[in-house]
């Protein structure tokens, strides 16, 4: 069974290829078992030669580019099933860094069709109770899943059925939104909402979410879930110290990070971090 990580990388207003490069380096520098990252790009994306060595496979997004005209390029996120070169895949967002070995998580994925992240954490290690960004989830009692770290087994019939439905909802979101979601409903397409709707419609929440383990998970660096009292902007890294040492250990404020780190704010990833990762890997 081949295993690997997979991310869709499409440059819009930000350089996601650079983020994926840093992600791939962080995986290579922290993971002992599964260390491969493949990416999917659109036909207009150019990948510097230096970056290419870090990616296991670079595939072109099939069935045209559904996100071609969009600023926030999430519209191809139903295609993972068709794009991944692996039997077992963990979907990642490109704006993440790995900080520690999570190899044992893969053991828990064995014999599972799919495994969704359902609880995420703040940089302080507190479980996120997201009432700010997840109003659609709360109002509609959607399973609280995050697609930024989502495992699936391609050989599973259930996985195939799930991604067929995900595709259908992506293509008909306006109809599904009206029929299945009560206000306040999101008008914009989000993979998290669509995946959650598909899980709810197929009634596979218990199948997909692991209740007795606290992984898979990640640190979710959105400002309004950090339990801060002050009213900070979404550029969270302007309000708290970020320290990335020569050994590529990440500390936020006074907290060492040990989980996959979903930084969201694209300014977070500095050239200095990339140089440190390259040095660690001897690139």
């Amino acid at each position, binding site marked *: 069974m081949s295993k690997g990580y997979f991310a869709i990388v499409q440059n819009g207003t930000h350089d996601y290829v650079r983020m994926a490069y840093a992600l791939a380096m962080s995986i290579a520098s922290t993971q002992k078992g599964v260390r491969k990252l493949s990416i999917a790009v659109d036909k207009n994306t150019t990948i510097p030669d230096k970056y290419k060595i870090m990616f296991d496979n670079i595939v072109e997004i099939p069935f045209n580019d559904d996100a071609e005209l969009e600023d926030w390029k999430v519209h191809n996120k139903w295609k993972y099933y068709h794009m991944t070169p692996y039997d077992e895949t963990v979907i990642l967002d490109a704006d993440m860094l790995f900080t520690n070995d999570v190899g044992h998580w893969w053991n828990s994925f064995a014999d599972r069709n799919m495994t969704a992240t359902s609880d995420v954490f703040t940089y*302080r*290690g*507190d479980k996120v109770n997201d009432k700010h960004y997840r109003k659609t989830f709360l109002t509609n009692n959607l399973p609280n899943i995050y697609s930024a770290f989502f495992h699936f087994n391609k050989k599973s019939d259930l996985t195939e059925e799930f991604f067929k439905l995900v595709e259908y909802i992506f293509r008909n979101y306006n109809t599904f939104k009206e029929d299945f979601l009560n206000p306040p409903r999101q008008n914009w397409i989000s993979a998290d909402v669509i995946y959650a709707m598909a899980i709810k419609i197929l009634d596979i929440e218990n199948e997909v979410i692991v209740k007795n383990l606290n992984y898979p998970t990640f640190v979710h660096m959105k400002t309004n879930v*950090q*339990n*801060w*009292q*002050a009213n900070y902007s979404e550029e969270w890294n302007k*309000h*708290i110290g970020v320290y990335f040492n020569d050994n590529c250990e990440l*500390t936020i*404020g*006074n*907290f*060492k990070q*040990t989980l996959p780190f979903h930084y969201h704010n694209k300014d977070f990833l500095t050239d200095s971090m990339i140089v440190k990762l390259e040095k660690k890997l001897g690139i």
Partner: protein
Amino acid sequence: MSRGILLFAHNNRQIDYGKIALANSCLIKNNMKNNHITLITDTGTKEWLSKSFSDEVVSKYIDNIVVTKRRQLNNPKRFYDTRYTKVNETFYNINRDECYQLSPYDETLVIDVDYLICNNLLDQCWDLNYDLQINSESRDLFSERSFEEFDYVSDQGPKFYWATAFFFRKNKETELFFNLIKDIKINWNYYKLLYSINSQTYRNDFAFSIAVHMFNGMTSNKFIPNLPLPFLQHIHGIDDLIDVPDKNSFLFLLDKPNEPGKYLACKTKNTNVHVMNKFALNRLADKIIEVHNV
């Protein structure tokens, strides 16, 4: 292995911590099995205690008195006596870093004198295989009320831990822990800045919270577990303690969150309570001794 309870009492101009320590010692002797008590105090506090109570009463409840020097401090703290009175007074009880050196026991349970012990739950700490035990959660007796200042040491900082009650077994690790507390205390201005703590007052709770955070590898791991209680319980300085109706029982007036300055009466029985209104405790300490000195 010797086992015992360590109390600290250093009077200031208005609060007789020695008397409160004696009152809590009565409660501890009445309720706990491992109840050998050592009081860490200073000459002035000890003399005042001797003047106020007979040697017979003091020695009945406090097995051992260790006198240390009360250093002159510039550590003002705001003490509340309900919402209607607040007083700035020096807070001398900041020498928890000396526990390791001052404790005559191999296994020590340190209890703040204002954490009134009304049951034997803490006796279980000696049976647990954890060399350091301290709680990060304390719940308000008024269950609808919570104070954010007790969640984290600062808006972006680590979890707040309560130095109100903790257990340690002497070994190299716990010695290191208390050395760390000492370092934090000596370099408080640095740590205060590092952890964005706005309070002017040095608090044992802050130093312990930072030390626990560092011991946890700068993460929120539960490397240091709780005492054998899921949480402590407290009343705030804006509340009042008004009576000791019978053994292990207290009557409080709790400030209503929706009607500040108005109160809800509340009676506890066999519940450990951290009474943050020291003035109220000062007023009721004699009654606690009277009810429990039998």
